[in-house]
């Protein structure tokens, strides 16, 4: 007895395919646009200080982030140089360092199950500590400079990647490694060309989680102790009651988060393309 898994869905014929794409595009983004319009209308009606109309928010965004500056050497918009670039820079460095260390350590630990046994409880414990609770500790040690935020991001983002790398390496079939060994591949080659690609799907899953964590910690650390950056600008705007700037910052942050996640998926799809094809 056959099981019906996918009921056939009626779709317009192939020659209408472009229209279908456009239709999907509209349903996807139409709702968002609709909500923007709804916000605009409600905000103008209610006239609440806390929820300025979308048009004003977009205007603030445009002025701060898209209008070339008169004072800056490169004609970069003011806010881009003061808020966006420091934030993104810290994020990039922190995330990069975290992933680098985590993958390196993870491969070593994953290949040595006994070492993992020794370290596992301590790792699980350190991972369970909520990153915000550790911020004051970092603050004491490192003050409010960039290094504090970067190290904070590293501390928070390293765990998902590390644990996923260890898991990923551990589940590489032993046959694969031994075959490579038989073919005369050195330890280093085995690690880079066999084990790493085999563990890559799990590693990327960890990297995706780590990205979200890194962004959250970046914003948090900038709110607690900073003199520039997106998180700082949002909190500062709230405290000085510049609501449009606050909302502009939030929307910008959401957009950046969306774009970064998108970028990571694109990279992931590229790197894992061979994997999908071989295991599909």
């Amino acid at each position, binding site marked *: 007895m056959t099981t019906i898994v996918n009921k056939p869905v009626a779709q317009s014929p192939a020659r209408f395919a472009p229209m279908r794409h456009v239709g999907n595009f509209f349903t996807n983004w139409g709702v968002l646009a609709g909500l923007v319009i709804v916000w605009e209308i409600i905000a103008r009606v209610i006239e609440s200080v806390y929820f300025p109309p979308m048009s004003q928010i977009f205007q603030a965004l445009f002025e701060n982030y898209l209008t070339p500056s008169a004072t800056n050497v490169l004609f970069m918009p003011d806010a881009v140089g003061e808020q966006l670039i420091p934030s993104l820079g810290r994020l990039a460095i922190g995330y990069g360092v975290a992933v680098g260390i985590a993958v390196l350590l993870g491969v070593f630990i994953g290949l040595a199950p006994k070492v993992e046994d020794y370290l596992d409880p301590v790792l699980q414990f350190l991972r369970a500590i909520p990153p915000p*609770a550790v911020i004051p*500790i970092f603050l004491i040690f490192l003050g409010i400079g960039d290094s504090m935020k970067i190290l904070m991001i590293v501390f928070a983002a390293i765990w998902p990647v590390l644990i996923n790398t260890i898991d990923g390496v551990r589940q590489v079939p032993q046959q694969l490694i031994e075959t490579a060994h038989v073919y005369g591949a050195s330890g280093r080659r085995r690690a880079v060309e066999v084990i790493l690609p085999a563990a890559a799907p799990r590693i990327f899953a960890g990297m995706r989680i780590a990205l979200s964590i890194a962004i959250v910690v970046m914003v948090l650390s900038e709110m607690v102790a900073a003199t520039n950056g997106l998180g700082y600008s949002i909190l500062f705007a709230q405290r000085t009651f510049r609501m449009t700037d606050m909302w502009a910052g939030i929307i910008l*942050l959401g957009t950046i988060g969306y774009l970064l996640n998108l970028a990571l998926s694109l990279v992931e799809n590229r790197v894992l393309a061979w994997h999908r094809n071989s295991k599909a």
Partner: protein
Amino acid sequence: MRLQQRQRERLIRGLIGIALISAVMELVARSGMVSGAYLPPLSSILSTAGALFVDPVFLEDLTATILAMGVGLVISTLVAVPAGILLGSNETAFRLTRSLVEFLRPIPTSAIIPVAILLFGQQLGMKVFLICFAAIWPILFNTIYGVHDVDPTMKDTARSFGYRRLRILTRVVLPAASPYIYGGIRIAGAISLIVAVSAEIITAAGKGIGTFIMRVSQTGGEYQVIYAAAIIAGLLGWLLNWVLVRGEIKLFRWNPNLAGGSR
């Protein structure tokens, strides 16, 4: 037998690992390599943690955080599960809300903290709002996934028995999706702790573990208190997860795909 032996080996090695690292930390602190004020010895941190447990001020803060987490989780579940069921079973609804969800989701909860402060002041309501904002997503997505993944044969069988749509929902879809939903609640639990402490650290007002830590660090308190509080926060998260996992084992004994070995 072999499995038990291997598990015992892991346990012993794990304990040795803990002991070794604790010893190293203790030595480093006492030898004065790092200034004693910055990194107190592990023993004093642990004894301070013990003292905190019986400190009424700290306990007040601790319960405030737990309260916020609990209320936030309950509200999130009450909102996210029905929404997830709706979106999981109805393709049109799903497509309509996709763009909204895809845009709201990447907004870091910490960015919303100023908004929450504006709307709710600096007390419980703000924390609950933030926790809901963050914790709804994992529950929602897991519910959608769980509902979507229900074996159509089961639903068709129920329908051929004459069940109406609502009964299919409650008797077939919900029980089948409940392991996924529960998984989402587990993730939401961890997130709720992080969000609660984040909110407390930013506002440094009201009650909570985060405000406790900020208070101590800003009034020049001893560092071991701060370390101890952070460790207790970690223990809280670990305890929450442990309770939820045991609940999962109890509730879902019937499920062959039990997530017993997942981290």
